[in-house]
């Protein structure tokens, strides 16, 4: 449908053509799914009427799987097998996880990413997230009555490449047709901006359970442009719970609390924290594992004192984002609060003091991200209504670069570059006859490679023998609209194509994802072939409709022979979609994609020619 809209702007698809699309906020403490119905975004509830799904998964003995509330109820008595806040471990290694302090999990240093040993076996954070996403997919399918055509999954804006890739892998494992990864503050801005018809410069202050994002956006009619983003992907409401729990441990002599007691303290800390948003003091009685009963109390003043440093930590990234956007606090027309942790009164005061204006909080901070994602999903899948023609321009949060001599970083794409972005950097050989070159891709702002995150190591082989400095190795970085990086390298003087071997430093390889996908189906007892067929059919329908519309609009760009060839492949794909062989269907779709490349390129050229011609006519008219 998106193709039709290019030639007929503003034309909305007939009601029966509306596709099912959802937005999913995969949060640290809870997750939710939303959709657009009758022109309005709404969150979808489970059978019990609950919208928020606790991001908790329990892997009990005998392969028992519980997701959400049922899992959370067991967090205190079975902490080792009940995984909470797993978002913090996405795309992370053992060393990263260590800084979260004492956690009741058995971490295993699996290749690429940390894994957790549970009663049901080893689980990667990607699999745990996939179980949460699958629960939401099932909820959405039950609620909407059909298979989803597309989903937008949100990620913290400050997530790096490995964290984003891990999230995308989780969505794939969960059987979600991912249209886009969307940054959480940007999603909030869409929901807020479209709801309020806002124009001007907005700061989105998003403090979730485990991550902090601050994005500055310029909202003008029909365009959401992210000017800059900053944050801390290891700072959130959880840290406030930890601060309270440590305070109690220190004052009640519970320094060597067991895993269960640690979890109990944290659960109580969270409740007390939430009560302190409206009360001046709170007290709860807790029975510890040895039968000892303790009274845990805290006043709001104490809470504010022990968490003052955490509140201050949000202001550093806030200043940085403003500076990157070339703005001062007073230049901001509005500050929108997002994330449950922004309910804390002292945090709101700090934000108000910093910007010199009271923050906006009339949208539910727990739901606004999912609602924005649903609006974006609805648009991407092709359900745009007339007048809903808006454009979203986001940025990459962290600089991307390469290791050069002496362990220094050469930045190729600076932070806050508008995505998608592609940029090439040339390198040369160091020795005569050098035939290979190691390429180390890193992400971060620091000058030393050791202070940045290592994303991947490549080896470029087959460089023809030349004297030192004669070879020209072009390394191209490309960040797509999901904020995901791909890197390619080639030697340009000879045009010899050299092979590139990718070894992700963090994250899962394609093989691992494929293996988990197989295991997941075995585990859930789902009919894998049926699922694959259903997914391929959705894909096939999409591409057959898209190419049909493209041929109707721009078929004249093809020679008669080319057109007949493409039409034959479309027909073959459509015929296979009626059958049951999902492998043959997949091959036909891939074949059709390949065959339509030249046509796609010619159509885009025509679009651009028309845009230029149209602008000239505008200029004449003015």
């Amino acid at each position, binding site marked *: 449908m998106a193709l039709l809209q290019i030639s007929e702007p503003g034309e909305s698809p007939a009601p029966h053509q509306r596709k099912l699309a959802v937005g999913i906020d995969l949060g640290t403490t809870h997750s939710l799914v939303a959709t657009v119905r009758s022109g309005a975004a709404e969150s979808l509830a489970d059978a019990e009427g609950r919208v928020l799904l606790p991001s908790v998964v329990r892997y009990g003995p005998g392969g028992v799987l519980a997701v959400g509330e049922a899992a959370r109820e067991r967090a205190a008595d079975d902490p080792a097998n009940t995984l909470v806040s797993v978002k913090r471990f996405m795309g992370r290694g053992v060393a990263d996880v260590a800084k979260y302090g004492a956690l009741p999990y058995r971490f295993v240093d699996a290749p690429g990413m940390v894994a957790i040993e549970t009663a049901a076996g080893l689980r990667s954070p990607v699999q745990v997230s996939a179980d949460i996403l699958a629960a939401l997919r099932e909820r959405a399918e039950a609620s909407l009555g059909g298979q989803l055509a597309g989903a937008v999954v949100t990620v913290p804006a400050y997530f790096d490449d490995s964290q984003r890739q891990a999230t995308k892998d989780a969505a794939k494992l969960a059987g979600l047709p991912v249209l886009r990864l969307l940054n959480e503050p940007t999603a909030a801005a869409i929901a807020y901006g479209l709801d309020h018809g806002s124009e001007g410069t907005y700061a989105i202050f998003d403090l979730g359970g485990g991550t902090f994002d601050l994005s500055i956006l310029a909202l003008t009619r029909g365009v959401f442009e992210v000017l800059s983003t900053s944050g801390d992907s290891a700072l959130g409401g959880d840290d406030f719970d930890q601060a309270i729990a440590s305070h109690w441990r220190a004052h009640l002599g519970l320094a060597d609390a067991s895993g269960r007691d640690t979890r109990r303290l944290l659960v109580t800390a969270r409740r007390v924290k939430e009560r302190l948003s409206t009360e001046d003091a709170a007290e709860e009685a807790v029975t510890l594992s040895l039968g000892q009963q303790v009274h845990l109390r805290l006043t709001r003043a104490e809470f504010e004192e022990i968490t003052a440093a955490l509140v201050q930590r949000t202001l550093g990234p806030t200043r940085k984002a403003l500076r990157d956007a070339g703005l001062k606090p007073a230049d901001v027309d509005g500050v929108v609060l997002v994330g449950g942790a922004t309910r804390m009164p002292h945090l709101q005061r700090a934000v108000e003091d910093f910007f010199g204006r009271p923050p906006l909080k009339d949208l539910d901070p727990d739901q606004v991200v999912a609602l924005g994602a649903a609006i974006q999903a609805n648009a*991407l899948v092709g359900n745009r209504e007339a007048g809903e023609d808006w454009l979203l321009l986001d940025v990459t949060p962290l600089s991307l670069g390469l290791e050069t001599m002496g362990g220094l970083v050469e930045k190729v794409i600076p932070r806050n570059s508008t995505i998608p972005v592609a940029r090439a950097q040339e390198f040369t050989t160091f020795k005569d006859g050098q035939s290979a070159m190691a390429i180390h891709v890193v992400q971060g702002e620091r000058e030393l490679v050791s202070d940045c995150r290592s994303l991947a190591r490549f080896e470029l082989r087959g460089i023809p023998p030349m004297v030192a400095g004669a070879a020209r190795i072009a390394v191209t970085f490309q960040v797509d609209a999901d904020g995901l990086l791909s890197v390619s390298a080639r030697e340009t003087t000879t045009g010899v194509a050299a092979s590139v071997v990718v070894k992700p430093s963090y994250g899962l390889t394609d093989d691992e994802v494929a293996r988990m996908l197989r295991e997941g189906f075995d585990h859930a007892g789902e009919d894998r072939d049926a699922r694959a067929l259903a997914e391929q059919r959705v894909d096939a329908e999409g*591409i057959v409709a898209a190419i049909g519309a493209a041929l109707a609009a721009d078929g004249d760009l093809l020679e008669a022979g080319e057109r007949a060839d493409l039409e034959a492949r479309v027909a073959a794909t459509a015929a296979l979609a009626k059958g049951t062989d999902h492998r043959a269907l997949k091959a036909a779709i891939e074949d059709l994609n*390949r065959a339509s*490349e030249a046509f*796609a390129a010619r159509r885009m050229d025509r679009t651009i020619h028309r*845009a230029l011609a149209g602008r000239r006519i505008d200029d004449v008219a003015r």
Partner: protein
Amino acid sequence: MTADFTRNHFDLLGLPVAYAIDAQALERAFRDLQSRVHPDRFAAAGEAERRVAMQWAARANEAYRTLRHPLGRARYLLGLKGFDTGEDSNTAMPPDFLMQQMEWREAVADARGSRDREALEALKGDLGRERHEMQSQLARALGDDRNYDAGCSLVRKLRFLDRLEADIDDGLEALGDGP
């Protein structure tokens, strides 16, 4: 088949090849182009179209980024005219400019050393005015004067100022991120 990338940035955005630019027209042209080629317009399309869209959207972003900033626009325009600004190779500068640079650098280092936020902000302000003056000169050199050698020299000077400003920003960042 890859997209036709032979058009220069100005042509792609339908603007005259000139340093003097109508900022609003540039922004309008960019948004118009991006709204046609952005991958979000093709999210439901086939893989081939999504890939082409990504290439073009990246191309549009690059053109906009280059032309929006005076330094980038000047460097790009000089490149089109066959002039290499030589920012990495040519470090020869007039002595008075070098003198002033050294003074600036010392002032920045002092302010950073004494963690003096106000001094850093003041230096940033001074730098902004200096930059403004140089940009005016650049506009004349690349406009009516057609003095491209002078343009190259000004681009190199402006690059110096950019580095200095990054230094000031680092200093401010170090102060701002403290407890």
